[in-house]
């Protein structure tokens, strides 16, 4: 575990590791955490964030957010920005699940209306949204359409009557990132993408029906702007990404990057930190393929939202429009994007990697959809299925301090193997039902691995980011129904 006394304390919730910590560090590392969270962080985070600080062209800091935990290459909960001319891009700094992200949909239903039908609702969604190991998705939709899906993202959905008019504007980047090139994607990635189109996945991916927690309704005025007006309002949260399509693209390019690094005389401390100059041909090819996966993920979440709207409509005998099932927002938390930032006299484009970290753009930013622009970008932080989640908002301080970035979840403190030793899936399912959370899981083993005790206290993570001023709490969301892949 990390020792707080080894680091320079910057504030009550931020710490710095100087470049003298490790040979080759080009910038210091910055960790956001309370003393308690820092001391609970595994040493893998410290090793990994300081390894990231050694990468060519990194600017300002290598960051670890309050939810950081040991990943591969970059820590999960890591942010790093690179000079677009002298810096690198690293597939391991984005992750295998390209554009894994969160979606939040509101309803105008109150919990008292949903509670008697929660089992029916969750069971129906479980049947409509494919989840779990090796499950097939909506292959007929995707077959022959992958070029358009991956270049147009949610715009493709809008063109095919698979999105509401206001859906694309409520997705990060408007639901599609420019620069996709399907010719840079392997045949294996295409096959995996087609077969898993519209699926939830497994691991920590979930679909959750949640209720506003009246005791933690922090900013009702701001919440109103996001369409959350009641203190027992029901919302739906979706956590998933680009499925096998993105996983294979990352696999393919990690392999290419590792062998190409020699040509650019780049050495890294971990094979999963393989990286290449962003302006190299190989890096451009990866970026074009990675953008394909990012756009695929936006569409994947959209297809799932359509099934959720269909399920609510069937159960409540009203169309989804009359249930006000609008998208509040969709955020990426595994991505690299070229963004414009200013710091210490610099004003220009940077390549920002966020791996298990969320964009947190503050008020007035032109990339925020018009209805939210004055208040800031919605930030969706998903917790464990037992402890609930949070809606926050981006801040100006995040723009100044972290390249507009914050945490993404609660972060694990216990391995999957250890969690399974502690609790059995069926026992956990019953315990959760007793607490008013109806869970439908594709596998009982997978359920046990995602038990709340395997994660950090999400409230402490969120409180840390709020106190640091890089995202601000709006409302806490309590789970009442959960679908686990």
């Amino acid at each position, binding site marked *: 575990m990390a020792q707080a006394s080894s680091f320079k304390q910057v504030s009550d919730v931020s710490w710095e590791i100087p470049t003298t910590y490790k040979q080759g560090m080009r910038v210091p590392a910055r960790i956001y955490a309370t003393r308690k969270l820092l001391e609970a962080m595994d040493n893998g985070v410290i090793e990994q964030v300081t390894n990231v600080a050694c990468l060519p062209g990194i600017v300002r800091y290598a960051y670890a957010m309050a939810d950081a935990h040991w990943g591969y290459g970059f820590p999960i909960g890591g942010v790093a920005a690179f000079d677009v001319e002298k810096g690198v891009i690293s597939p391991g700094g984005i992750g*295998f699940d390209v554009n894994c992200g969160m979606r939040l949909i509101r309803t105008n239903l109150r919990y008292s209306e949903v509670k008697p039908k929660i089992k029916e609702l969750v069971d129906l969604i479980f049947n409509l949204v494919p989840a*779990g*190991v090796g499950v097939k998705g909506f292959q007929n939709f995707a077959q022959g359409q992958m070029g358009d899906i991956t270049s147009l993202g949610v715009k493709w959905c809008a063109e095919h009557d698979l999105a509401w008019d206001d859906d694309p504007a409520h997705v990060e980047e408007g639901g599609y990132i420019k620069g996709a090139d399907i010719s840079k994607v392997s045949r294996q990635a295409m096959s995996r993408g087609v*077969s898993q189109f519209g699926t939830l996945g497994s691991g920590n991916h979930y679909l959750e029906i949640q209720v506003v927690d009246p005791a933690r309704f922090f900013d009702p005025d701001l919440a109103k702007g996001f369409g959350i007006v009641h203190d027992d309002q029901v919302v739906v949260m979706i956590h998933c990404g680009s499925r096998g399509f993105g996983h294979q693209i990352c696999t393919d390019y*990690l392999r290419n990057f590792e*062998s190409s690094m020699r040509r650019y005389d780049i050495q890294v401390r971990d094979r999963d930190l393989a990286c290449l100059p962003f302006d190299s041909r190989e890096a451009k090819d990866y970026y074009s393929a990675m953008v394909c996966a990012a756009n695929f993920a936006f569409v994947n979440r959209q297809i799932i939202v359509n099934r959720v709207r269909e399920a609510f409509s069937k159960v409540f005998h009203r169309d989804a429009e009359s249930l006000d099932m609008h998208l509040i927002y969709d955020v990426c938390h595994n991505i690299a994007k070229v963004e414009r930032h200013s710091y210490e006299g610099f004003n220009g484009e940077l390549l920002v990697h966020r791996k298990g970290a969320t964009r947190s753009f503050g008020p007035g930013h032109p990339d925020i959809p018009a209805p939210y622009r004055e208040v800031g970008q919605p930030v969706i932080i998903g917790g464990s299925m037992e402890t609930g989640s949070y809606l926050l908002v981006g801040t100006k301080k995040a723009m100044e301090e972290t390249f507009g970035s914050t945490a993404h979840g609660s972060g*694990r*403190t216990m*391995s*999957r193997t250890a969690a399974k030793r502690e609790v059995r899936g069926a026992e956990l399912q019953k315990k959760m039902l007793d607490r008013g959370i109806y869970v439908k899981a594709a596998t009982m083993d997978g359920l046990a691995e995602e038990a709340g005790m395997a994660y950090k206290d999400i409230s402490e993570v969120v409180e840390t980011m709020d106190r640091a001023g890089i995202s601000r709490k709006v409302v806490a969301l309590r789970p009442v129904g959960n679908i686990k892949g």
Partner: protein
Amino acid sequence: MPFRYLPDVALADVAFEAESDSIDGLFETCALAVTDVMVDPKTLKGGTAKNFSLEAQDLDRLLYDFLTELIISKDVDSLLFREYSVKVDPGGRSLTAQARGDAIDRERHSLRNDVKAVTMHLFGVSQVGPRWKATVVLDI
């Protein structure tokens, strides 16, 4: 068990260490570990066979590619395997293998985790005395 999980490595993922007295056996053991992460192998019957033929620049890469092929088979062909027979060529740069397993059936198979990918984190094959060893971290 010829492989053991490493619960203190990469908390969100699954790490394992495998060993064998032969390189063929090491590849087979690693493949069994990947299966074990995805499904209880005892619930598979092994009625369907799939053949693999791979080439790579070195032994590490050959194992990485072989395990990746198993993940692709799970996603594209919906196949999970319980038995493996692997023959690595003497140079360690190519292999032929046969895997036997079943098409995924949620009712019959006790499914576990959907492996996304084999990571390069801590990945490696080594020979310690007469034993071959490998460390693998799977992204979940």
